[in-house]
């Protein structure tokens, strides 16, 4: 840039060496030619990539449209603000100050450090939160105890800070440098720094003894503050100033009314360039927990401290050696986090806008909300030490793997763990009977076999042997239980009955079913082929029952009619129809035992009702009797048709052929009766239409009842 142009902003400048040009993007700006590059860096019409280019948004547009786009960009990084609350529990062993006593960390913490052990997910997340919370508390305490923290703030405020130059250690630099915490210095300050370095020697010589002492102390303090061993990875994330001018680490707050503050300090985020900025903690968490695995020893020491101090006091989780109890408690009541003993934890996961929905659904709705009582159900007395628990939802099991939901500590995320099917599913959940392990009785070969082999033996057994085996001992019962999803179980179906005015459930029947857990695959459906046959049997049972009852009723109806009308001119007709019904009844009487169907329990009712109906309509006149016949036969024919349709759905069942042909024949017979009735002036009966509708309704209800009872 020319010296003249450096200071010249006159758009009508008549300097010949460097003419004024227009912006080629059409933004109406005019400037000296040499400033062109600078201008295009800002020009609102120049085409830029979306800020989220590194996350996958490939759109390009004018710079002026950028802000609008970012509101909707699917690749925008969002910080999830879902929060969960943990209650602080007070316990009897309150230690007021952290003691640096070297004690053995409990089992769970050891497993936290030793990668590979998985614990149940709710305990794991509680542990993670408690470590996290405790760490913050420690830092806060350290801050309070250590006045130099504050003085660092003061120094920042006073625009005097210590920055290490390459050559000299005691150079103070104005604030603008420190705003770029990743060490990038603007050119002016670079100049400054160089000048200071040049004069450093002189200044040091001129300083008084006291001043020099102060500087040294200051420097030492500062370097101590920022060393890695004290605050792991805080400084690694150079772009996330955790000790911000907001005065703290925003990971867990005491009852905030507002979500985490946005701070303009943090927009220079060299790790994640996005349109989003906040003083979030996620990268901190990530680094912290992943460094747990990497930097073993350092953190083991740190965890010792944490173990002793807080985990036995605060945050509602106490870790134990096998002698002590395990307590935890999680509050569900998000609407009243008002008590000071509950701490709010923010999810603070970074995710893209288009992934956010999935994140919320999977992690927050499906897993976290259900974790409390759905995924893992614990005895309500867990806080007093009961360790009974079981998983309610079984993740999908396919042929190769079993999948377990765990908390992945290095990545601080909820993840699936795949385990080979052969080796995993059983051993973790079955506990060998205590006496077995104690005695190591060598003659108990079967129970001492490894579970996988026992499992293989059991797959060779039939159901009855399995049932016998399950009665042998508790351990074997559990192992057989594991086999259930493949084999299916017998479950009872209950029916609500009213007895003496009181409703209760009574067991109606037992039915064999395959277990379909929520996520099961189709392999479990293959293991039982009898269910369609069962269904078929039920269908035949029902059909025969209702038909038998119907024919009995028809027989009685005609009997009733004959009793009144035997001497009239329709007598022979009715007699003829009655004989045919007798034939039908006889046929059903023989089919019922043959197919092992249950006859209707209300047979006496049908008998009486039929007789009454026949006699009643006959008393109204022979036309009425015919009308009754018409109504009944109409419903019956249609009913037989429906049954035929149901039976024909399974054409490959041989036994049905006889049944089908029988019903067909009967249907035709009933149709003939219907027509006979019409031919005999049924339609002239008084109130023909009403009568027939009432009778039809009655017959239909009777059919419905007879099918069931």
């Amino acid at each position: 840039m020319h010296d003249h142009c450096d200071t010249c902003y006159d758009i009508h400048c008549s300097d010949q060496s460097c003419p004024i040009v227009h912006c080629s993007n059409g933004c109406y700006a005019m400037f000296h030619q040499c400033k062109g590059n600078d201008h295009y860096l800002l020009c609102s019409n120049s085409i830029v990539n979306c800020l989220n280019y590194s996350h996958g948004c490939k759109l390009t547009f004018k710079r002026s449209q950028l802000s609008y786009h970012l509101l909707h960009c699917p690749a925008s990084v969002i910080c999830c603000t879902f929060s969960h609350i943990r209650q602080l529990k007070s316990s009897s062993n309150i230690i007021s100050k952290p003691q640096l006593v070297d004690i053995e960390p409990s089992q769970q913490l050891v497993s936290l450090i030793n990668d590979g052990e998985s614990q149940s997910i709710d305990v794991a997340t509680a542990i993670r939160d408690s470590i996290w919370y405790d760490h913050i508390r420690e830092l806060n305490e350290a801050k309070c105890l250590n006045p130099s923290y504050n003085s660092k703030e003061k120094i920042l405020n006073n625009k005097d800070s210590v920055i290490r130059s390459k050559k000299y250690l005691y150079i103070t630099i104005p604030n603008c440098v420190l705003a770029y915490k990743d060490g990038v210095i603007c050119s002016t300050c670079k100049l400054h720094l160089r000048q200071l370095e040049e004069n450093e020697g002189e200044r040091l010589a001129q300083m008084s003894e006291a001043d020099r002492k102060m500087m040294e102390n200051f420097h030492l303090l500062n370097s101590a503050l920022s060393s890695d061993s004290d605050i792991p990875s805080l400084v690694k994330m150079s772009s996330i100033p955790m000790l911000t001018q907001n005065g703290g680490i925003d990971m867990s707050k005491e009852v905030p009314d507002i979500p985490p503050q946005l701070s303009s300090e943090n927009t220079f985020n060299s790790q994640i360039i996005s349109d989003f900025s906040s003083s979030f903690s996620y990268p901190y968490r990530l680094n912290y927990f992943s460094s747990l695995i990497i930097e073993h020893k350092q953190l083991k020491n740190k965890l010792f401290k944490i173990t002793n101090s807080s985990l036995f006091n605060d945050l509602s989780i106490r870790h134990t050696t096998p002698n002590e109890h395990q307590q935890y408690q999680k509050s569900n009541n998000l609407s009243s986090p008002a008590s000071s003993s509950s701490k709010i934890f923010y999810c603070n996961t970074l995710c893209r806008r288009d992934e956010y929905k999935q994140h919320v659904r999977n992690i927050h709705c499906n897993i976290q909300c259900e974790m409390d009582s759905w995924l893992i159900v614990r005895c309500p007395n867990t806080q007093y030490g009961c360790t009974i628990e079981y998983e309610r939802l079984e993740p999908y099991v396919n042929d190769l793997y079993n999948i377990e939901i765990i908390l992945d500590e290095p990545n601080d995320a909820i993840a699936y763990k795949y385990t080979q099917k052969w080796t995993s599913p059983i051993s973790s959940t079955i506990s060998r009977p205590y006496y077995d392990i104690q005695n190591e009785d060598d003659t108990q070969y079967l129970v001492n076999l490894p579970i996988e082999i026992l499992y293989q033996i059991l797959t060779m057994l039939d159901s009855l042997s399995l049932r016998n085996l399950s009665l042998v001992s508790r351990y074997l019962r559990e192992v057989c239980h594991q086999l259930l999803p493949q084999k299916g179980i017998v479950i009872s179906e209950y029916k609500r009955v009213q007895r003496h005015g009181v409703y209760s459930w009574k067991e109606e029947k037992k039915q064999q079913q395959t277990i379909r857990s929520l996520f099961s695959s189709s392999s479990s459906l293959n293991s039982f082929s009898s269910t369609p046959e069962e269904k078929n049997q039920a269908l035949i049972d029902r059909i025969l029952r209702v038909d038998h009852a119907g024919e009995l009723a028809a027989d009685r109806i005609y009997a009733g009619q004959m009793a009144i009308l035997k001497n009239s001119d329709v007598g022979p007709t009715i007699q003829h129809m009655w004989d045919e019904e007798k034939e039908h009844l006889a046929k059903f009487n023989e089919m019922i035992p043959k197919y092992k169907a249950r006859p209707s329990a209300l047979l006496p009712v049908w008998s009486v009702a039929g007789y009454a109906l026949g006699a009643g309509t006959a008393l109204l006149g022979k036309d009425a009797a015919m009308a009754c016949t018409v109504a009944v036969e109409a419903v019956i024919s249609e009913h037989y048709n429906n049954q035929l349709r149901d039976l024909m759905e399974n054409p490959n069942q041989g036994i049905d052929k006889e049944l089908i042909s029988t019903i067909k024949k009967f249907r035709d017979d009933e149709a003939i009766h219907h027509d006979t009735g019409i031919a005999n002036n049924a339609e002239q009966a008084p109130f023909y239409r009403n009568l027939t509708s009432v009778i039809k309704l009655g017959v239909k209800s009777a059919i419905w009842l007879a099918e069931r009872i």
Partner: protein
Amino acid sequence: MAHKIRLQSSDGDTFDVDVEIAKQSATIKTMLEDLGMEDEDDVIPLPNVNSAIMKRVITWCTHHKDDPTPPEDDENREKNTNDISSWDQDFLKVDQGTLFELILAANYLDIKGLLDVTCKTVANMIKGKTPEEIRRTFNIKNDFTPQEEEQIKKENEWCEEK
């Protein structure tokens, strides 16, 4: 191929076996493939198998060396336990201890055929027995409380024949 391989049991006895016969064991087969064909002087240690069992396993493998490889079967299929050959049945007429040791050895050495046939034998020992008989056969203690027994009986009464 008369190539022989030396297998050493847990008590220190070595056995010379044809490579083809030894390769029925998937464990040994993988070991050989991974380590390359070694000299005749080197032995393959098998610390989980003692000599007596080792001998029997070798006998079985020698008899079955010409067997076709069994097909990959679906785990869910209910297995037929009647198809044990008479030679195998005689071979497995041993006391329980040996039988279960054979199972463990077959599992360790990953010999599918032997594992199958031994498991089928045990399954046949379980089939058709009442719980009490199973307890007696396998020396298992009944650790149900009387209340549990009561409850289990009630749950199972549907399949008692009346």
